[in-house]
């Protein structure tokens, strides 16, 4: 039984691609055959975050148009077994994505035995974002603790609940909230909305909180999903997220202010 999961947010720059890459790599590392699809046609970036930018030959739109087979376009990750990347086209625009085309690719991935199909949505609520969420069984809403991000997440939740195929069929998409760039210190100072307030406003069950961490930028610099940086807090938080998604009962971490030791207090 395969599951289609959309990673979406409405607002740009909140960590959709970072989350898609980390989550897909996490699922694959747990032994699940996983494909991650970049829906940001015209502005592809998942290939770069995954470090496969030099291996792109064919893309999603080529497959939809019958210019390449799915097998030709899928890039197999060299670090994690079971992980495949389907890059977006860089030269077309979002109209190249059709409902029928997207559906046929998703169906082929399902027949090929992919357990999880992760759809990395572009920002906005235009065609690309709509296509990414239309066939979803579950949705991961990525939100920053910041007003415009929370509002846009609420908008995209409304679209999920009214415009998706599941909604059209009277079904419900299972929603998960992932809060990224969270800083307990700033929450404590009253500068940042707390995760409790975000959960309260959006009323979506919390899947994970990813702490603000320099390792996210370092990972993207190097083209390595941050989940592979097992020493980093962000990497560990994404590992927890994956495990929780798969049904493990794991407490949330990195929600409290880091206790500074005596020397750290002294020298900062």
């Amino acid at each position, binding site marked *: 039984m395969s599951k289609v999961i959309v990673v979406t947010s409405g607002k740009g720059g909140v960590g959709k691609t970072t989350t898609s890459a980390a989550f897909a790599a996490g699922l694959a590392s747990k032994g699940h055959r996983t494909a991650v699809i970049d829906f940001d046609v015209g502005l592809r970036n998942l290939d770069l975050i995954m470090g496969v930018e030099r291996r792109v030959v064919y893309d999603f739109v080529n497959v939809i148009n019958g210019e390449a087979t799915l097998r030709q376009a899928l890039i197999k990750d060299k670090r994690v077994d079971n992980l495949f990347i389907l890059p977006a086209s860089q030269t077309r625009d979002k109209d190249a994505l059709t409902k029928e085309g997207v559906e046929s690719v998703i169906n082929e991935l399902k027949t090929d035995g992919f357990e999880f199909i992760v759809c990395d949505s572009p920002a906005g609520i235009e065609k690309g974002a709509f296509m990414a969420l239309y066939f979803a069984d579950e949705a991961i809403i990525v939100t920053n603790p910041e007003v415009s991000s*929370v*509002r846009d997440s609420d908008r995209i939740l409304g679209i999920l609940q009214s415009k998706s195929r599941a909604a059209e069929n009277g079904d419900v998409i299972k929603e998960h909230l992932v809060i990224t760039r969270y800083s307990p210190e700033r929450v404590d100072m*009253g500068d940042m909305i707390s995760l409790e307030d975000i959960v309260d406003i959006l009323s979506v069950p919390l899947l994970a909180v990813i702490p603000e961490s320099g390792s996210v930028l370092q990972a993207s610099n190097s083209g390595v999903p941050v989940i592979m940086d097992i020493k980093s807090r962000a990497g560990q938080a994404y590992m927890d997220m994956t495990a929780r998604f798969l049904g493990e009962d794991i407490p949330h971490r990195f929600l409290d202010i880091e206790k500074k030791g005596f020397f750290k207090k002294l020298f900062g």
Partner: protein
Amino acid sequence: MGLFDIFRRDRKKNTANVAKERLQILIAHEHSRAGAPDYFPEMRDEIMDVIKKYVAVDDKGLNVKLEKGDDYDVLELNITLPERR
């Protein structure tokens, strides 16, 4: 938290609470609009025109709301008539 943070904290406003309140109001407002049929804004304008034909009301005096119930929706029209002289 250092010694000086105690003073800093009092002086600065808790902007996180401001953010939360603004979001709660905004999202409640946006939800009340969502799900309204496409013809809704046009219908509102037409109703407004009819009322204006008979009574001098301004746009602010008319409030049209659609409330979603479980098995029925309620269309609520709230018209503030001008003060009687």
